[in-house]
């Protein structure tokens, strides 16, 4: 008998699951708002101190070499960041001389298709989501960044907040179809 995705929900979903899902969904909605309002320092507070924020490069590979299609750790990447290096990138925007964002772009981060499951460590969850980020810049520049994110979320012992401890971003493009990425995904 085949399993339909809804079976799990109707048979086993608990109030705690719904609560967790809502919590993650709200976390991502708040995160998207902070990014779209260019409140990057506040955005950074959503991440754990030991953050790894990573967006590998995607390549076209023969079907039998598909395993190599997403860049491996240690290869050229779009982002390969720690919390400190993100802070460094953010300080640049505050300099008043970051011309790629002056005047600022208009962005809209849409986060959807969220699933959450228990992670490997106690108090950790793996959340997958899809994103679509629309950037409109100056008179008529438009860029679309679409892809998927896999986050490891960790519940802080002291205040119970969920922090993002790992993020892997798979951007669904080979040649990046934009002159840069001057926001975060």
């Amino acid at each position, binding site marked *: 008998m085949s399993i339909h995705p809804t079976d799990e929900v109707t048979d086993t979903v608990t109030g705690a699951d719904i609560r967790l899902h809502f919590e993650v969904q709200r976390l991502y909605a708040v995160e998207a708002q902070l990014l779209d309002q260019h409140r990057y320092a506040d955005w950074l507070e959503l991440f754990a101190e030991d953050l790894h924020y990573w967006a590998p490069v995607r390549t076209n590979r023969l079907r039998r070499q598909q395993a190599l299609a997403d860049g491996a750790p240690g290869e050229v990447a779009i982002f390969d960041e720690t919390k400190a290096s993100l802070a460094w990138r953010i300080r640049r925007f505050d300099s008043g001389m970051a011309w790629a964002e002056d005047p600022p772009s208009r962005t809209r981060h849409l986060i959807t298709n969220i699933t959450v499951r228990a992670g490997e460590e106690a108090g950790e969850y793996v959340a997958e989501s899809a994103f679509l980020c629309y950037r409109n810049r100056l008179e008529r520049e438009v860029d679309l960044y679409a892809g998927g994110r896999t986050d490891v979320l960790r519940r802080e012992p002291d205040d119970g907040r969920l922090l993002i401890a790992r993020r892997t971003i798979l951007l669904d493009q080979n040649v990046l179809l934009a*002159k840069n990425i001057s926001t975060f995904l």
Partner: protein
Amino acid sequence: MTSTPVRRPVDRLARVPEPAVDVGPYFDLDHGLVDRTIFGDPALYRQELRRVFAPSWLFLAHESQFVKPGDFFTTYMGEDPVIVTMGKDRRLRAFLNACRHRGMRVCRADAGATKAFTCSYHGWSYDTSGRLVNVPNGEDYPAHFDRDQWGLTEVAQLDTYKGLVFATWNPQAPPLVEALGGMTWYMDAMLDRDPEGTEVVGGVHKWVLEGNWKLAAEQFASDWYHVNISHASALMVMSPTGKGPKTEIVQTPGRQYTDPLGHGHGFPTHPKSRFDDRVVHGHYDYEALRERLGDARVEGPMTTGHATVFPNFSYLPVNGSIRVWHPKGPDRMEVWAWTLVDRSMPDEVKDAQRVYNLRTFGPTGIFEQDDGENWSEVQATAHGFVSGSMTLNYQMGLGLEAEDGVHPGTTGRLYSDGAARGFYARWRDLMNTPAWHEKDTR
């Protein structure tokens, strides 16, 4: 006026040559003047594909991308798609990535390993030396059909310089090392720091820019000038005080090399060379580098410089960024950028260089983001009749170029348009000279 049909090496049928525009009037380089038309005109673009790109040595890849026979990498020479691959004899070859039957792209992967390139249209199959080895329904071809004559179209010459693979369609091009000319002394400040040579980190950054390829190539040859302004935010973040470029940086001394073959290299000069990343800096034994490459190179081109090998290969010695500006029409380029490291660096040093490079350069780099903004805006404002044909100023450093007695060849001040003038002099001369394929009347 009648034109004589000519054959190109890739042609079996003769073809009528396209008319050529005399680009001389677009330049008065002795007075540092350039007409902006050269960046956006579609006819000039077609002409530069056949007279600048087709005859020149073009960068393809790094040798370290090919380890075993069958390893391949696909890229472009101008707008021509090519496959670079190592044959069973371990020789590197490059072919047009187009089936000889109907022109289908025979390899649609970016990189990988294969025994054969089999066309997915009708199944013609080529081995890694480019030979046509299988033709489905071969019995239906006429008796004079000779598979040996229908192998993949191979470049006329392929050669490497210290790990960098270049090729040209031009059988009459001088050998690679002659085409690089005096530039090799400068290139070695990046390519020859390590007796074991260089390699590239896995993966290539690829992104599009809405700007003519020359905007980027020219800037990397010649433009230190923009650094303090365009990259002010990045310099501020990187300065220990967090206060932005200090006068020492703005007034920094340095030289700019102009090669008669169109190459250029600008670099600050400093008695103490240093790499920006702390780990990479700590790795280098500067005394040994002085011994190996000489004081002039360690204190000059090994500092935070920028360079272009004519026409469209550029690099940053300190970041380890090497890149090619692929032309994609008069208004658009595609940037492909690799990260170069020394082979004998310990893994953690290689990784430090990789991460430093992607945080500063590449599509999210704190420097490169602002370069993208400049080039796309320069291109966007050139579409009007008046704005598109205005005369641009390339006068910085005019009359100040000389032999400086330290760096070989002609150099000028760091803040100069010298190498840009040299780049355009070379471009103009190639544009006004019929290429080998226009003269070939076999």
